[in-house]
């Protein structure tokens, strides 16, 4: 039921982990050390595609290093990301390479007493390679006769043959596109390309493993899912899960890069098991850049519409550049069409997605998981359609968007749910006002060196992958909530917070539910031994699903509080209520009609303790039956310098419908961070490879063009706003923000640039070079027209 009279939720409060982070006391995996710890290093391939002819480790072993090669590891192909169910999971990866398929692939691993010695030992290993043709472009890789990366891979428990480097395909057909197109009055279409950019999370991926005397292992790892990391380790090393403990750590940002068990984790475990000593292994920044990236996409999309602007159907063909391993390519193909049909009502769909292996960094989830790519295409085409039809782009969106009561695909065709809360009209209205949409002029009215443009991108992201029935994506969380003897509360969850404030949100939701002051509710350190399963912090699900689990369990604790207190107060449990008493710093259990029948939670908990009765606690799992869209609209005013091609952001209106806002300052931070990463994707970041599969940045971060402070718009020009909505399926009305904040940003830039100079770009990033080139072409065309 809607109730927005919150005491804790929606308040701006200092972050609980703030002090630890600003004073540098927070420990990330890379900061952990153990007595007698060895340092690991990997020997990385200098070729992007090669057969390994021989390996000589004798010199490294002579230095006292522990050395691992392919023959020392379990001969098991795995997929590091097991959010997808087993039957839909491809597995092509060994702990160390059987054959090299990307630059920097780990071929041998060593561990030694010092970092310097480990480095020396790694350099002393001699590997003989037979280089193979390098495939960088998926279209080349698909051609018959192209050098194959794989002969076979595992799909579920079957071994399948790989032809033409095509790892997977997916076809989706809904309704009748031919009929819909035959009845359409107008079409828009285009081929949109996006690149395999780098996550650029600040913390390098790391792992620390300690072999235990009972044959088990303890693992500290950079990951978004401690339980999935444990399960994959159990599968590879054949150790019972009851002997594998993965610790939940502070994580230095991920943006998807640690959705899986990272490649360093099983290498670290194998080294530690062989050495019988703790081992820490951390990727260098250069290794990290070769380890993962966003999926590159090349998509042709055609949309039909009626004269009045009603969309009729969509036809889409997409090639996804998977890189050297398939981590989540099959789901990627499914979600990509899902994002399209969930943005706007497109009842007739014909889609073909193809995932292709190339000799580049493996694609894995990166904020939005195909959504910014899809949104760029659809939002660009909608602007084109509006222009063709002479309709205001904003009105065209309002007419066609997927909103209240409609069906929506949360994660591809198998995860569908209904929209229960919808702040889109409010967001569009507010943004329209802030940016001055109505004074927007067409590009042909603009001239001179500096040309301004206003653009709109609207989008959304699924909050969790919940649905009424199970699908091909696992989605549930759990929590343990217990009341301590002094009336304070421990929340034990496996959910990872990769920086956005998920733990803060969970603490607030529990404090609100149990009426306990926030400083007495703590999300405590945890690990796989002490928690029930949580799938992963991904899909914008932290607050909605992790918070949902915590609220579900807190409600059970509340019931037990009432039942237990009823016994002491000699009243009916149903007559009891809870309130937050700030003076006493306690939750108070009371009967509204009998003022003296009351006790604090501390009194209750200390009595159940001293009378040797019980701990008031509950533990449970929670499967969201919905995956509500978190809607975002981005309005931008930019200025293009037609002499340099540079784009400057002048004004923004960033709006989100995240239901109840749990952490207002954190929510603003999500929007601003999303803008920054979206701006990087739109204008700068490329992460180009040369034809030998080497990164042009050579592992230098600055050359990967991650936006710095100079690229970020001025504070006074960032306007953020929230829709006033309440999500009935969410914890206390909340949805998520995370990925939604980035998804429409590249589209908003493309549309604003078009509005400034009248040129539409179909390929990201829209660099100054591309803008200048296009302006020159435009000028030539005008000149030719004159002569």
């Amino acid at each position, binding site marked *: 039921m809607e109730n927005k009279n919150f005491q804790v939720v929606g308040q701006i409060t200092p972050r609980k982990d703030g002090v630890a982070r600003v004073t540098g006391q927070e420990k*990330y995996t890379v*900061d952990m050390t153990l007595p007698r710890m060895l340092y690991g290093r990997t020997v990385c391939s200098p070729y992007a595609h090669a057969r390994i002819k021989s390996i000589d480790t004798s010199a490294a072993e002579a230095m006292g290093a522990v050395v691992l090669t392919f023959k020392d590891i379990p001969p098991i192909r795995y997929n590091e990301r097991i959010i997808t169910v087993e039957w839909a999971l491809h597995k092509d990866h060994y702990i160390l390479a059987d054959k090299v398929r990307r630059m920097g692939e780990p071929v041998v691993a060593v561990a030694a007493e010092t970092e310097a010695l480990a480095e020396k030992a790694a350099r002393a290993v001699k590997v003989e390679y037979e280089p193979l043709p390098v495939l960088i472009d998926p279209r080349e890789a698909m051609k018959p006769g192209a050098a194959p990366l794989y002969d076979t891979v595992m799909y579920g428990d079957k071994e399948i043959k790989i032809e033409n480097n095509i790892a997977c395909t997916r076809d989706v057909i809904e309704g009748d596109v031919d009929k819909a197109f035959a009845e359409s009055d107008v079409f828009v279409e285009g081929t949109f390309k996006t690149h395999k950019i780098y996550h650029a999370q600040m913390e390098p991926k790391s792992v620390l493993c300690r072999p235990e005397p009972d044959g088990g292992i303890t693992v500290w790892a950079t990951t978004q899912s401690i339980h999935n990391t444990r399960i994959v380790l159990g599968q590879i090393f054949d150790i019972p899960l009851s002997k594998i403990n993965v610790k939940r750590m502070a994580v230095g940002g991920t943006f998807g890069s640690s959705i899986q068990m990272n490649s360093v984790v099983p290498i670290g475990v194998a080294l530690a098991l062989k050495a019988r000593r703790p081992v820490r292994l951390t990727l260098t920044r250069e290794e990290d850049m070769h380890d993962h990236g966003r999926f590159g996409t090349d998509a042709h999309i055609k949309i039909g519409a009626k004269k009045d602007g009603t969309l009729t159907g969509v036809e889409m063909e997409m090639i996804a550049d998977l890189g050297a391993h398939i981590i989540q390519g099959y789901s990627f193909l499914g979600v990509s069409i899902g994002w399209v049909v969930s943005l706007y009502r497109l009842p007739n769909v014909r889609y073909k997605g193809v995932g292709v292996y190339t000799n580049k960094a493996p694609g894995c989830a990166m904020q939005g998981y195909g959504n910014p790519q899809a949104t760029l295409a659809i939002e660009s085409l909608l602007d084109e359609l509006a222009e063709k039809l002479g309709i205001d782009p904003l009105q065209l969106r309002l007419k066609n968007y997927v909103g209240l009561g409609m069906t929506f695909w949360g994660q591809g065709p198998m995860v569908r749910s209904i929209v229960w809360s919808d702040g889109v009209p409010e967001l569009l209205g507010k943004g329209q006002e802030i940016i001055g949409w109505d004074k927007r002029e067409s590009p042909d009215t603009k001239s001179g060196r500096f040309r301004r443009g206003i653009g709109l991108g609207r989008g959304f992201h699924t909050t969790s992958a919940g649905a009424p029935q199970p699908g091909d994506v696992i989605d549930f969380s759990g929590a343990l909530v217990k009341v301590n003897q002094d009336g304070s509360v421990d929340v034990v969850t496996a959910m990872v917070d990769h920086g956005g404030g998920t733990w803060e949100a969970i603490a607030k939701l529990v404090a609100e539910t149990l009426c306990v002051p926030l400083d007495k509710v703590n999300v405590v350190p945890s690990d796989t031994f002490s928690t029930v399963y949580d799938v992963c912090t991904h899909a914008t699900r932290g607050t909605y699903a992790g918070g949902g689990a915590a609220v579900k369990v807190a409600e059970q604790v509340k019931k037990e509080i009432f039942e237990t207190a009823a016994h002491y107060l000699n009243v009916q449990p149903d007559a009891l209520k809870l309130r937050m008493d700030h003076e006493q710093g306690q939750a108070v259990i009371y009967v509204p009609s009998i003022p003296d029948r009351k006790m604090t939670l501390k009194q209750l908990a200390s009595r159940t303790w001293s009378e040797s009765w019980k701990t008031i606690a509950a533990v449970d799992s929670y499967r969201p039956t919905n995956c509500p869209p978190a809607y975002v609209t981005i309005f931008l005013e930019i200025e293009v310098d037609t002499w340099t091609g540079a784009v400057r952001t002048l004004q923004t209106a960033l709006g989100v419908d995240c239901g109840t806002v749990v952490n207002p300052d954190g929510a603003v931070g999500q929007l*601003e961070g999303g803008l920054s990463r979206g701006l990087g994707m739109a204008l700068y970041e490329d992460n180009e490879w040369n034809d030998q599969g080497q990164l042009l940045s050579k592992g230098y971060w600055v050359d990967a063009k991650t936006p710095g402070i100079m690229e970020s718009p001025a504070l006074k020009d960032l306007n953020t706003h929230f829709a006033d909505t309440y999500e009935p399926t969410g914890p206390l009305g909340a949805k998520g923000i995370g990925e939604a904040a980035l998804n429409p940003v590249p589209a908003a830039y493309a549309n604003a640039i078009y509005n400034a100079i009248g040129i539409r770009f179909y390929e990201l990033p829209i660099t100054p070079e591309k803008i200048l080139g296009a302006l020159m072409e435009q000028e030539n065309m005008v000149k030719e027209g004159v002569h």
Partner: protein
Amino acid sequence: MKPQMITLHINGRTHYVALNPNLTLLVALRDLGYTDVKSGCEKGDCGACAVFLNGVAVNSCLVLAAQADEGEILTAAGLGTSEHPHPLQTAFSDAGAIQCGYCTPGMIISAKALLDHKPHPTDAEIRDAISGNLCRCTGYAQIIQAVQSAAEKMDAGGEG
């Protein structure tokens, strides 16, 4: 390579260490347990490893430990404690300028280096001072806000 003895004065404590002359100050500090000095790239790209060396903010991954022999080093942990945080630390925590927090210690060092010389910095001066520090989470706006609000507080309280 022969280890070399050096002396480092870190956050008011003196350490005598034997280390290889090719080790960076970043590695030396982290090996001594000063893990508040973050390692982001070890190539001078990200600013996560910033510390004060004899009053000057440096990327510790670009300084050899031996060059810092006898030097006074101040790290983010030396600026303030949980009980008595530096105004910049309070401002970062209050202004939403931290998300994952991995860039934060380095950011705070760069910001302090600025405020030491310019107690009332403009937006452009703040950007210039922080331009060597990457943050992937926040989009920087709240970081600028934190530096401004710390400057105001320090001005009013005469601290810093």
